[in-house]
């Protein structure tokens, strides 16, 4: 096991190197020069060139990449072109807000999605099933900003339960978290239902029932683990998506997270910020996937890594 984890961490380093290289090249291919975009439009060619030299953009690409790696090793994420402040500070400002929103959304989608799926499976074909799956399908079929605006219209403008936007109190969190969690919640509930139905038809369930164990125990003990595999997969994938920040939710609810941060950064071609942030996301995603893979082993002991 330890060997496996070490091996994975080694691979993680390689993966992160590839991410760093890929993003480094990708953003430099996009049209638009950061120095040109930073200076007032009246700046002359010489002035743009001078800024490029100061920022190190005139050096050959391998040299720039080398500097980037060197800084990384020293745990220096560089200075943002756009904000002229350390990148770590900028990310540190925005990330906690996104983490909060993303975390609460994920928890919400699990807490509501899993029970919903179980109920739908157990009461298959009956009203509860239709209602639950109805909600699920709706949750996956509406545009996020439409859902967000609708929630605001109903729960904020009509009934003054929650604020329309911004951050601060837990009330500010409810509507954006609900909006962001809708899709994942629906997806999880459907996967859980589908998995549960498969399991409820399994032979070993019939055997367990025949043995006389109570229904609930049967479901929980024997079926749960297996159906968690696709759920865990989805959760693992969602973390990556949520981390990068749902730009739309952040825009609709004026929630200043990393989604908006990265949008501005890309528009301004803020190379250091884009590179550092992507690397950060890569790191978290790789860690999460490692945990997910370890969970697979726990959930299904038949899996051999």
């Amino acid at each position, binding site marked *: 096991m330890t060997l496996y984890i070490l091996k994975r961490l080694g691979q993680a380093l390689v993966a992160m190197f590839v991410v760093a290289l890929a993003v480094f090249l990708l953003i430099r291919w996009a049209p*638009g020069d950061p120095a040109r975009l930073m200076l007032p439009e009246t700046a002359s060619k010489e002035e743009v060139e001078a800024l490029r030299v100061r920022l190190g953009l005139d050096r050959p690409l391998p040299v720039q990449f080398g500097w980037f790696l060197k800084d990384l090793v020293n745990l220096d994420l560089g200075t943002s072109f756009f904000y002229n402040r350390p990148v770590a500070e900028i990310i540190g400002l925005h990330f906690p807000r996104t983490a909060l929103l993303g975390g609460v959304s994920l928890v919400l989608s699990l807490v509501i999605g899993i029970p919903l799926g179980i109920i739908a499976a157990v009461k298959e074909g009956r009203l509860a099933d239709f209602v639950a799956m109805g909600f699920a399908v709706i949750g996956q079929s509406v545009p996020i900003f439409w859902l967000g605006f609708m929630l605001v219209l109903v729960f904020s403008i009509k009934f003054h339960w929650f604020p329309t936007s911004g951050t601060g109190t837990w009330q500010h969190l409810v509507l954006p978290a609900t909006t962001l969690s809708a899709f994942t919640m629906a997806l999880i509930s459907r996967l859980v239902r589908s998995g549960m139905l498969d399991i409820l038809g399994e032979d070993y369930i019939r055997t367990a029932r025949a043995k006389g164990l109570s229904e609930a125990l049967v479901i929980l003990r024997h079926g749960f683990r297996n159906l968690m595999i696709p759920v865990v997969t989805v959760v693992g994938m969602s973390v990556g998506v949520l981390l990068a920040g749902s730009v739309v939710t952040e825009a609709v609810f004026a929630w200043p997270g990393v989604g908006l941060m990265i949008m501005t950064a890309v528009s301004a071609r803020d190379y250091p910020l884009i590179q550092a942030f992507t690397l950060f996301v890569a790191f978290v995603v790789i860690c999460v996937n490692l945990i997910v893979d370890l969970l697979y082993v726990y959930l299904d002991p038949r899996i051999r890594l």
Partner: protein
Amino acid sequence: MRQMFKLHGVFFLLVLIGCLLYGPVTRAAEKGMADELIIGATTGLRTLEVHWMGAQEIALNWHVYEPLVWLDSDGSIKPLLAESWTVSNDGLEWLFKLRPGVKFSDGTDFDAEDAAANIQRQVDSIVKKEPTSFAFMYADVAKVEVVNKLTFKVVCKERIGPLLNYLSILLMIPKEAVEKWGPKRITEILPGTGPYIKKSQVPNMGAELVANPKYWQKGLPAVSRLTYREFVEEATMVNALRRGEVDVIQPVNHEFHPLLKADKNITVESFLPYEMIFVALKCDKAPFNNLKARQAFNYAVDRKLIVDTLLKGQGRPVGAFIQEGMPGYAPQLKAPARDLAKARQLLKESGYDGRKLKFIGPPGWYTATRESCEAITAMMQEAGFNVELTFLEGGAFTNARLTGAFDLHFLGSRAITGEPQRYLDERVVTDLYKSGWVHKECFDLIKEAGRTIDPKAKEKLYFRIQEIMYNEVAPQAFLHQANGFYAYRNNVKNFKMLPTFTFYAPGVVKYKE
């Protein structure tokens, strides 16, 4: 088991009721003065560096850092930190007398050395090849001399016609900061002389300002806290106003007027901004290197229809570029009316070969922009142009403009200095956006206008310049000037927006609802 459910159920119900009540309870308030004014806007605050700001950032920041003079809504220059000024007969020397008793919020005096340092910083930044946003306005300044504690002199190499207008957006920072930072972008919050002190500024979120007890105008500001909240989606901003989470919002698009006007707690006001919407043409490449093709474009676009429908009549079609309210406004150059037959005829005569033209539009947060671009594209196609519209992303759009990779592009121009010289210097003579248009007589006139201080003489020059550009339909075809709108809750008084898109909040009073 059932008991437990009952208990949990009751508890849950109580929590739910508590949440529901929270709303109404917190809204209860007595009449009286509220001490915080919250302004919502869609412009982001990207920097703490006052000499590197765009127009709308200046709108907030001049509540913290003041300029020497300011531009009133009628276009006149009014004293602020400078009490009075004179200009020598040859127009090369300006003498400024500062207001006594002004202090920075950290207690140090504001004097002529500070003012001189600020102006000198712009000049020096050119030399050091790290120009500030406004450096080019001071390119013709030879030196700045301090005469005594409250007087300083600006000596120019050439006459700078709009110097006062330029100074209206140069915000004053302490000379110690100038010494410390030089032309490098400042990344810390500095003390200013204004009615507010900037407590904090968070990217993508906004800024918090608190009243400056040392402010030189006694009794101001009326509201002790000013919060600026940034929004990305206009609809969200509008909803926040409806719920009372912000007190003022600007700008507000026409789409939301019915909503806001129907709300009894909200007032919507309009102002005439110094903003011109235009389509820039690439004049050094076919087809627009031919006057007939440019004229065809002019007759193809139905300016009046766009204003009447897309802007709901809140604006005016224009032909010449100096906006109403600015010196040199030439209403005699009327906006051309649409003439489809003429447009088709002219286009044919120009020898247009049907090549697909690239029309680029700015990134699409604002619907009115998108609609105008699409409408114009359709109108052009009716006249026989083969044109393809693409909306580019921010960086790509700027890049395309600055490298001339377009046949047409759509943009608006704001005259935050309240005068047209800057626009003419940048977009026509220096040809920032690579339109490729050259016209010796026009360029000479522009240069001369830049050197003219006398307003009457200036006006004559601007008329002639606009006439040439109007007849040549170059380098831009001007479409319309649209009204600007802002909205505020009824308990806010004295909030006003100026044509330069700035607002002035110290005198704003807010009562509790």
